[in-house]
């Protein structure tokens, strides 16, 4: 197995081979976090696909086309992207690579125990998920993909997503070499999300590191990310492991799967709109996992999660991905209180008055 590596075979040191996203998923699986099972298709597969015997030198050719583009010229970018993606997507996948992907998918179906299991196919770039050059969302993600042919087709789409206008412009501006970049792909069991959202292992509103803040909404996480809904918000005290804040918002829209693949936005049934999208047990369990993830990485983290409606709590909780929190982690080098003795502290309290606004 050269082109396919299962999550439990990889870790954070494998970015150069499976990309950031897959390496991180492997890291989480091996640390014991509940990540939906899956596998990565290595960079080698992509490289060999483009450098295959018949079309030798295709990657260099593409790089040449792109390198001439002015990243500020959006129309030109668009044109070049379509051209290049077309070249990629019309390239047949070498048989031995396709075979290995299909075999992995079938093994996966057998293992989980049902045919044509829906999966998410996501790109996993080598420069992605790096704190200071966040590529997140720059490559494509395909949800609810079923069947071996469709999986292979979307793997190719992920490969070609290395050449979206945004990705091209980004590399040009940042000075990354178009020839050097490569891409791996993640194929992961789809979570049948009843609820999903994000979790920060600090309070993003004020940087309080003693709190975990969870944002949650019905259906797929896409609804939150795209700003379609105001999520429910829960704050959990990390030390006391107690819910200290609970804000339930009316959630009018949700994002759900279509049976034939892909996702669709719909109105949330009225009786569900005002209901909290997580119960207390789920909030606390998520926070507990969040705390462990933070401990594992030793820095505040930003975590995507989902609750699978096909499983019983706590097996229903899945971690989809995580990355270092960037906003507050950069600050906070300065002391908040500074060097002060107990004497100073009491003195400052004793001389302080509480101001009240006149109404």
């Amino acid at each position, binding site marked *: 197995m050269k082109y396919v590596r299962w999550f439990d075979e990889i870790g954070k040191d494998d970015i150069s081979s499976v990309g950031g996203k897959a390496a991180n998923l492997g890291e989480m699986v091996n640390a014991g976090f509940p990540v939906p099972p899956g596998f990565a298709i290595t960079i080698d597969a992509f490289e060999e696909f483009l450098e295959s015997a018949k079309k030798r030198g295709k990657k260099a050719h593409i790089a040449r086309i792109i390198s001439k583009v002015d990243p500020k010229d959006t129309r030109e970018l668009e044109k070049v992207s379509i051209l290049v993606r077309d070249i990629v997507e019309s390239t047949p996948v070498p048989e031995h690579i396709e075979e290995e992907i299909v075999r992995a998918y079938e093994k996966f179906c057998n293992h989980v125990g049902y045919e044509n299991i829906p999966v998410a196919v996501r790109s996993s770039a080598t420069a992605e998920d790096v704190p200071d050059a966040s590529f997140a969302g720059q490559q494509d993600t395909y949800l609810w993909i079923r069947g071996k042919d469709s999986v292979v087709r979307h793997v190719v789409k992920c490969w070609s997503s290395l050449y979206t206008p945004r990705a091209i412009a980004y590399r040009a501006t940042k000075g990354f070499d178009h020839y050097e970049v490569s891409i791996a792909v993640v194929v992961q069991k789809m979570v049948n999300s009843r609820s999903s959202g994000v979790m920060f292992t600090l309070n993003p509103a004020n940087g309080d590191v003693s709190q975990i803040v969870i944002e949650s909404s019905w259906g797929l996480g896409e609804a939150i990310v795209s700003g379609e809904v105001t999520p429910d918000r829960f704050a959990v005290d990390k030390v*006391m492991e107690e819910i200290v804040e*609970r804000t339930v918002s009316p959630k009018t829209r949700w994002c759900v799967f279509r049976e034939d693949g892909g996702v669709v936005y719909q109105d949330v049934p009225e009786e569900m709109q005002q209901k909290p999208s997580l119960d207390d047990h789920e909030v606390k369990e998520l926070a507990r996992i969040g705390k462990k993830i933070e401990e594992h990485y030793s820095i505040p983290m930003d975590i995507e999660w989902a609750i699978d409606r096909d499983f019983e709590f706590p097996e229903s909780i899945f971690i989809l991905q995580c990355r270092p929190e960037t906003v507050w982690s950069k600050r906070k080098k300065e*002391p908040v209180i*500074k060097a002060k003795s107990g004497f100073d*502290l009491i*003195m400052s309290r004793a001389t302080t008055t*509480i101001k009240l606004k006149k109404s």
Partner: protein
Amino acid sequence: MSGFPDPLEVETPDEMEGWKEMYPPHYIFSEERAEWERRQFWYLDKIHAPDPMYPFDLIFHEAWQIALAQLNTRVFCIPPAQGVAQRILGCYFYICAVEPPSEETIQKKAELFQKRAFYVFENYEKENLYEKWEKRFRELGEEVKKIEVPDLPTFEPDERVFPEPRGYFTSYDLMEAYSKLIDSIYKAWQYHFQYLNLSYLAYLSFADVVRKLFPAISESTIGKMVAGADVVMFRPQEELAKLARLAISLGDRVKDILRSDRSPEEKIEELSKFPEGREWLRDFEDAKDPWFYVSCGSGWFHYEGSWINTLTVPFEYLKDYIETIEAGGSVERDIDEIHKKREEIVKEYRNLIKNEDDRNAFDQAYDYVRRIYSYAENHLFWVEHWFHTIVFEKMREFGRLFVRYGMLNNTDDVFLFNRFEIPMIIEDLVTSWALGENVPPRAEYWKGIAEKRKKILEAARNWNPPPALGTVPEEVAEPFTVMLWGITQEKVTEWIKGVTYRPEDVTEIKGFAASSGVIEGKARVIRFLDEITQVQEGEILVCPNTNPSWAPVFMKIKAAVTDIGGLTSHAAIVCREYGLPSVTGTGVATQVIKTGDIIRVDGDSGTVTIVKRSEG
């Protein structure tokens, strides 16, 4: 204008006519001081006085008004803090944190504060200041117990004449006994504040640090980091647990008597009939003083009673405890476990602080508060419970004397007179005694006043006093105001809303998120401890506030809501320990909620929702 009534313009119902004469003149709002009084912000002190004030019971307030302020302004000199002034309006008790002094005075006070307050912080442990305090305080209480309230003899006995006539006799003894009692109360309340202002300050200073480091931390968590486990407050409950265990170990006969439905007196009588019973009674007697000198209420009012004179309360708990133990439950608090848990919590928060200077500041502030905070927890038992119980018992000796000589109809009528009036009754009585046979005192006059005042208090109970008066201040500096009464911007805003509310229209009330968790259930509104036996398993307790003598009921309930008290209040502490949701300091829970209502207590957000009103 603030939206609060002018204190001089508030009208009281006609049936309350005469209420002003019940209290000392300096407690009444008057034209003479109107300019100053209107400028202050007065609020109804529901912590210390949820009900109309009995004239004698005001004495503790008279004493703390002086003692608290004196510490702030003249002794430890907390720079911008002055005292907390008091007034009575229509039998209800109002307080106000006096505005800060001049800038010049603040400067002078700052120097003295540094010198004096830090002496205490530095030496509190080294010099065993708490132990010295407790020793002196208990000696004072013992002296009060020893005060003799003599009966009036037909003739002084021979011993007072031979070998040398004593010179002063029973009339003087009676007057002296009363003076001594009053003096001791004032002295006790001066002791009460000896370290209290400073321990509150240390708490607030630590809370400042924690909130800067963890801006979203809850007050209840700060309380948990600071709270002691082996505090005196829990002792009465622990003594009962011990007595319950002892009863079980002594065999079925002792146990069954205690579990029976007989009265406490009958139970004691039965137990004294056999050796094991007598053994149990010996331990029981040993535990009584001081641990049964715990008030059945807050300790502030004579009518609340204490365990020592309301034995049904501890005996009811004993019964519950024995049943709990028999059912395999535990009635003890695991102090080591509680300590360990607290240490872990502090350690975990500390580990979250990445900057070394910040961590040092945290350590320093924590060190100060841990050193002195137990004072805030422990003094409460000794002063408000133990000492007040002694005082009320002693006053009842005077009451019984007055009844014996026809001056009053009932023993407890003595509490219908303020502390300046009692000497007049004593003087009237001893004058009549000294003058000789058949010389009438003005007994009907005193009885008449007592009857009239009962009616006034009754009328006052049916009157709804405004929650606040006067002008909202620009700043509050007084540590008690912040710590104990929790005066904040939000509170003031809530009160302004509260001026016009009607209890039956309210469906949601707000308070402190004192102990986390959310639960729905049937409310049981309890105003006094003697109603506590009404509480059924699994109900939600709604009460003005709780105190150590309520502790055993927490094993029965599934949540608690109080009118008064912040995050370090008794209810908050006990609920956190038992893992029950609690919302404290709602201000109005006992007015808004009725027994039988289905309510939802959200101890995370500090909200209580009335889900369904009970029928009728």
